[in-house]
């Protein structure tokens, strides 16, 4: 990875991680949606610096959609009965997860090789998605279909209940 890509990688990492932390601490849904979109922009930048331009484009669109859903008028508050102690325990567990995975990342390594980065690669990804890994693509398509049908059904049940 050359210096320009490395700078882009580290800047995108800072943007995505900073946005992710702000998602946890900002109070309003509008601000949360905005920083989630910012974090998605950072993740798309990470993909682009790893020569995964098509994945970056898809991530940009999907994270913008997530941000709109989080910040949109359909948002409803559902409070959990879980107490502060358990939430703090969950936060500590997240820190423990980071420590374990970071150790695994530090120990992991691959054989380095030359890579013809920079191309958009949409034809190759299309061949992968619709020929080599068609079953995985159809599984994700089914997940999207079930999610959208479920969301629509939930909204209709709520409207009827009013």
């Amino acid at each position, binding site marked *: 990875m050359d210096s320009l890509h490395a700078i882009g990688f580290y800047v995108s990492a800072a943007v995505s991680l900073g946005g992710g932390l702000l998602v946890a601490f900002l109070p309003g849904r509008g601000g949360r949606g905005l920083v989630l979109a910012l974090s998605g922009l950072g*993740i798309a930048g990470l993909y682009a610096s790893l*020569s995964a331009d098509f994945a970056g484009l898809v991530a940009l669109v999907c994270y913008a*959609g*997530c941000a709109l859903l989080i910040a949109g008028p359909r948002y409803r508050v559902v409070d959990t009965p879980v107490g502060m102690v358990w939430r703090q325990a969950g936060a500590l567990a997240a820190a423990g997860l980071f420590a374990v995975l970071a150790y695994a990342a530090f120990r992991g390594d*691959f054989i380095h090789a030359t890579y013809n980065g920079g191309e958009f690669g949409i034809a190759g990804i299309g061949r992968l998605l619709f020929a080599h890994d068609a079953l995985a693509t159809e599984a994700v398509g089914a997940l999207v279909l079930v999610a959208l049908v479920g969301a629509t059904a939930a909204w209709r049940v709520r409207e009827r*209940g009013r």
Partner: protein
Amino acid sequence: MSAGLVSVLFVAVALVAVGAFVATWKRDLVAALAGLPLMFGGAGVAFAGAARFSAAGDPKIFGQEVAALLAVAALALVALGVGIAGRGTSR
């Protein structure tokens, strides 16, 4: 300045951990859903990084494919969660 596989995996791990932190820290369930795309994004970065730096195995763009599928799956799950949680009060 350079970035190798370990740097990529560290960032991916940090994204997963931040997503898990958001999911556990927020009292509101729908706000906690915002941690899901972050965790999926971390997994996607790990896949894309492994595909970028690995020497063996074909095709090279398998990691990009999984990253794109993970982004779509995250969007679908957030939509489902926001839809199911539609019985609460607006804020």
